[in-house]
């Protein structure tokens, strides 16, 4: 039986998953070299089919609308060619090298593509995957991906099991730890600490981070502000690639001009607006009130709760308190680089809004030197391809 459909629960927690046996059986039928090749071919074919069909999850059941998800999904799928996948494998020296037999993926996140990319990485090193989604997590997009894998190659698809349960279900958590050889966990500090303390196998943690943007001292085109608006509002500012702080090179006068242009771009951003719920509105209202009381903050906001631009006196990385709040701070280039360097372990990526190519090149180079691995142009932050080194680490090698 192919065990790839998203399941609500594990049927019998007293017996570990038979994934290890299934993978061993596949390795008897194929050599590891052939299995890795088959995985690459299957992923590439499934991605091609996905692009052709543009199959989507049911918007009514997912936290984010498909039109938003496809902005991230399309560049990812386009990078899943056989050539790109082998290039990734070779860049980490992982050709013909196997990962752990079975990898557990704990996804404590609502962003829909985290599980997809995590499974792809495991397949590229020939590992089996047992995926734990949150109790109310985003299963629909993963289901679409798994259906495409089944249709492409059932053997490769059989290397994946997906379940959903709340993190407080200790019995099923233990079952997972007893069934895998390594755990990859995506979540907040609490989740990671909890998994690390309970797991008997090594844990690869991907903690929560935020992203930033820089407006260098150069001419900025309207489409670049539009790009910044996308980088802020994608996934309702809930992803690790969502921008929370915009650093403006220049003085207070310039930062106010830039904040105004950013506000205009946020107003016209074509991304679908999230539903105004009581919880969301209460949270945003509270955050705006607290900011209004802060003498260092100058606020501009939309009528609803979608976005809030805060010009802030402190030139530091500032985390949004809740949905759609972005801080705009200013400083010299050296000052901004210093702040980014100081906070680099908390920054996932930086997008740049600048018209001049030379200035962009200089900033990219300087930002890379601070330890930021992912620097891109405004509007591209939430669209990384498979080569993106999340947390700046070797993604495949960490699975060995």
């Amino acid at each position, binding site marked *: 039986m192919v065990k790839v459909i998203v399941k609500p629960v594990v049927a019998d927690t007293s017996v570990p998953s038979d994934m290890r046996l299934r993978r061993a059986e596949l390795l008897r039928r194929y050599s590891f070299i052939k299995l890795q090749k088959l995985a690459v071919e299957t992923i590439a074919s499934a991605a091609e089919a996905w692009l052709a069909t543009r199959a989507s999850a049911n918007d009514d059941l997912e936290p984010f609308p498909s039109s938003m998800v496809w902005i991230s999904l399309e560049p990812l799928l386009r990078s899943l060619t056989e050539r790109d996948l082998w290039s990734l494998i070779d860049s980490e020296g992982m050709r013909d090298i196997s990962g752990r037999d079975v990898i557990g993926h704990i996804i404590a996140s609502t962003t829909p593509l985290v599980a997809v990319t995590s499974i792809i990485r495991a397949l590229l090193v020939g590992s089996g995957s047992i995926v734990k989604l949150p109790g109310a997590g985003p299963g629909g997009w993963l289901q679409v991906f798994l259906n495409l894998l089944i249709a492409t190659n059932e053997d490769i698809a059989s290397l994946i099991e997906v379940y959903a349960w709340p993190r407080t279900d200790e019995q099923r958590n233990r079952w997972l730890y007893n069934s895998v050889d390594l755990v990859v966990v995506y979540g*907040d500090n609490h989740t990671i600490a909890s998994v690390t303390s309970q797991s008997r196998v090594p844990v690869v943690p991907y903690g929560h981070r935020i992203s930033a943007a820089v407006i260098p001292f150069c001419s900025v085109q309207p489409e670049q502000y539009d790009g910044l608006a996308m980088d802020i509002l994608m996934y309702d500012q809930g992803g690790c690639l*969502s921008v929370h702080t915009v650093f403006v090179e220049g003085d207070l006068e310039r930062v106010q001009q830039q904040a105004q242009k950013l506000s205009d771009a946020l107003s016209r951003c074509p991304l679908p607006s999230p539903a105004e719920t*009581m919880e969301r509105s209460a*949270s945003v209202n509270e955050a705006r009130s*607290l900011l*209004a009381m802060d*003498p260092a903050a100058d606020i501009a906001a939309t009528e609803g709760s979608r976005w809030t631009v805060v010009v802030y006196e402190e030139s530091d990385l500032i985390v949004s*308190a809740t949905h759609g709040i972005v801080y705009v701070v200013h400083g010299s280039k050296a000052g901004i680089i210093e702040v980014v360097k100081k906070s680099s372990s908390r920054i996932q990526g930086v997008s740049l809004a600048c018209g001049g190519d030379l200035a962009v090149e200089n900033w990219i180079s300087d930002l890379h030197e601070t330890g930021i691995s992912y620097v891109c142009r405004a509007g591209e932050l939430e669209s990384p391809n498979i080569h993106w080194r999340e947390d700046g680490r070797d993604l495949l090698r960490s699975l060995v």
Partner: protein
Amino acid sequence: MESLPARIVSLVLGKSDEDFETLIRDLFAYQYAHNAPYRRLCDYAGMTPETVENWTEVPAVPAQAFRRFDLSCIPIASTAAVFFSSGTTADRSSKHWFSDESLELYEISLRTNYYSRFSRRDRLFAVMPNPLDAPHSSLSHMLGALDAEEFAGNDLTDFRIRLMAATEDSRPITLFGTAFGLMEMLSLGSVQLPLGSRVIETGGFKGRYRELPRDEFYHLLRDGLSVADSHCFSEYGMCELTSQFYSQGEAGSFSGPRWIRTRCIDPITGRDAKSGSYGLLRHYDLTNLNSVGVLQTQDRAVIDDDGNFSLRGRAADAELRGCSLTAEELWSRS
């Protein structure tokens, strides 16, 4: 003309029939003039003493503001007392600063409110620390001001023995305590309180114990203390609020004294929630003299036409989110 504090005291003591609206607007004008963070919020909202036309328009501060700012109309150095939401430390807790006048008003109002509902003849036992040991706990201060006879402190076993000894006297006892403290005490064994005794629970469980649904908790109180449902009360109060609300019986709704008004706000529209629908509680408390009189909470509730409300949990934003860092996480890594 009397000073504003004196006018509020007169209202509290029932010596004046000055209308609430005039007083809350005068309180707003005073706090707008003397409380800088609050004034900034009002200016941002475009609401000043000159533009506000109705008491419902007076801007509210979020309860969280008491954590972030020193909300005082006098310099902090001149304040008479400060209460912390945790009762023990200012770190990340709400801080409610009181002037001499506002502290006096607090004590007058809490006694007036309490004794308008509960008998002065009952012996009062408090399941909480003594105010001398917890000088920054508003709850301990309140029970001190009510001349509680015994405090549990940190030794519930000894407190229970003292309570049992007190039951030998037939005088009714009012047992006032945090839900957590009462449950802890009852875990040591039940206590048969004298006929006519009352129990008042407050404060919830604050994540320190397994949460009990209200019906189970009330069942525990009734059985463990031998009191009728009509003699079981809940108190709704908070560090950021000077006045208290009480409800009677498991199904009772909370009511406050005449110097506080409460609305249920739909945060999406900013207007009163539709009748029968829940909203978030916004309190207009004349006794919040030195801080801010209008407080916006995250407490979800349904309110009736008389202004009495029933709680429906808190407007906690969705726990599950993307892979983005929170401010708390950023701080915790600093």
